[in-house]
């Protein structure tokens, strides 16, 4: 390389640096707001989880690991013995159980629905997709409220059943785990259908034809051809349903009442009646950590399986 080309590639270097600077300048305002009201507070919260709880909310600026201990342990007031915090553990368990059940229910309902949409004529597919998208973008609280109206003791379903003399007294669905699960399935179902549809749309039906040609029955075609090919979509949809279910707050609060807490409600309690900010912070970070690990596993999975699925 001679001197001239060296100096002129400096010129290009400068142009490139200028472009990078321009890009960063354009992004800076958004980043400032995001640091102020999204990522920055997360760091502050991490810091708060290592402080001592104030008596009436807030914190005392002293280092303490109590917040983190209290996530799974309690110190008995009388004999000072450490025990597992059964109440917390049961909330963790309920959150994971309900989220998993919600995810599975969503797969069971969402898979045939996505398949149905994907096998419509090309022109009408957009319409069916639109029907899925609409609930996706409408208020989660309102959709939860709609379920509440349906399953309340004197709600639509119970009234109907009683009017038909099928039952004598209302079935108690509200304030149970079932109610939470019905609600979460209802509000998160579109999150399952959309990615499922995305990967089904790419399904090559010649493969299905080939399978039938080779004497496969419908069930076998489903099990041996369609499901394996749609797997990336199933995984993506499951992640998209599982993660918000795990952090759900509104749905369990409205449908689960005061006793059937999920993680989100337990966290909220620490800032409400419990007034234990460090514990609330530690619980939040635990939730965040579970979510991040799930996402990371998913990213690994999708990279390994070729990454053809966005």
């Amino acid at each position, binding site marked *: 390389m001679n001197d001239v080309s060296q100096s002129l590639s400096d010129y290009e270097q400068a142009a*490139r640096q200028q*472009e*990078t600077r321009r890009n960063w*300048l*354009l*992004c800076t*305002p*958004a980043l400032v*707001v*995001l640091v*102020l*009201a*999204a990522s920055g*507070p*997360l760091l*502050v*919260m991490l810091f708060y989880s290592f402080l001592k709880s104030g008596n009436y909310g*807030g914190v005392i600026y002293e280092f303490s690991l109590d917040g983190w201990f209290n996530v799974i342990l309690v110190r008995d007031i009388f004999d000072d013995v450490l025990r597992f915090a059964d109440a917390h553990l049961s909330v963790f368990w309920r959150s994971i159980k309900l989220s998993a059940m919600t995810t599975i229910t969503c797969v*069971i309902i*969402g898979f*045939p629905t996505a*398949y*149905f*949409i994907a*096998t419509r004529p090309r022109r009408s597919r957009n319409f069916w997709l*639109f029907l899925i*998208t*609409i609930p996706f*973008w*409408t*208020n*989660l*609280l*309102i*959709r939860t*409220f*709609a379920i*509440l*109206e*349906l399953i309340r003791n*004197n709600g639509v379903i119970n*009234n109907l059943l009683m009017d038909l003399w099928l039952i004598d007294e209302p079935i108690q669905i509200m304030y149970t785990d079932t109610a939470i699960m019905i609600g979460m399935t*209802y509000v998160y179902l579109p999150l399952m259908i959309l990615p499922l549809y995305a990967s089904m749309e790419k399904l090559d039906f010649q493969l299905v034809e080939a399978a*039938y040609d080779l004497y496969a029955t*419908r*069930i076998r075609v*489903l099990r041996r051809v369609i499901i394996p090919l749609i797997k990336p979509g199933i995984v993506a949809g499951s992640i998209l349903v599982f993660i918000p279910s*795990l952090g759900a*707050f509104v749905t369990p*609060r409205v449908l689960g009442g005061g006793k059937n807490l999920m*993680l*989100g409600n337990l966290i*909220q309690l620490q*800032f409400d009646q419990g007034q234990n900010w460090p514990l609330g*912070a530690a619980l*939040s970070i635990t*939730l*965040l950590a579970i*979510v*991040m690990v799930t996402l990371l596993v998913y990213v690994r999975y999708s990279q390994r399986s070729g990454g053809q699925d966005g």
Partner: protein
Amino acid sequence: MANLHAAPVNKGKLFSIYKLPGFTFIAVACFLMLYAPILILVGYSFNSGSSLALWEGLSLRWYFAAWENETVQGATLLSLVIALQAALYSTVLATMAALGTTRTRPFRGQTAIYTMINQPLMVPEIVTAVALLIVFATIKQATGYQGLGFLVIAHTAFCIPFAYLPIRARLEDMDTSLETAAADLYATPWRSFRRVTLPLLWPGILAGAMLAFVISLDDVVITEFVKSAGQDTLPTYMLGQLRRVITPEMNAIASALLAVSVLLVSLIFLINRKKT
């Protein structure tokens, strides 16, 4: 194939490779399940009786009741004020960020920027809400300022990724050759942006702003944690009411809010479709 068609076969019994047992049934049931609760809710909002369960006739009684309820009026106003501001700010910020991250060669820090912008989508809302509560409560205590600023900046932040999405998609579809042509025809970068880029990007910006507006209008969790006393928006007002007695007025409010969302989302859908 030819043989199949030669014999008169009952059309319904023809083998279709697309059919799977029970799938259509579940799918139809699924669509019914998705829409029935909403439709029942909307239906009962027009009920003239004061019971939630008994249908007593058509009326707009509960809409008037909600309209005249001063708390609801205040909450509506606040919701709109916050959503409009959040939509405006987040759209401006997202447009700039989209211009800085698309149609460029990969640059140092690009992934970090993406992660930052998408963070509100990945972190559970309750976690962000609690983190904001901690920080803002401390600031509120220290400064004594309790105004709307906290809600506006919080909403702006989580609306950014939603506004960013359609703007970026639109930009990526736009050929840089048009800007190149503008530069060739003596347009300075700024004039090329005003005369070429912005008009072409406009549908994306509009969609982004509407999406941000809907998202802000619908937010419950973050608002619930960030708001100061007396700063109820419609959704947080509803959340509070749902724990107490539920009146049909709720149905009316919910239906109205629903109508706004559906309208805007349909518009976004149309804007995006016209493009292709």
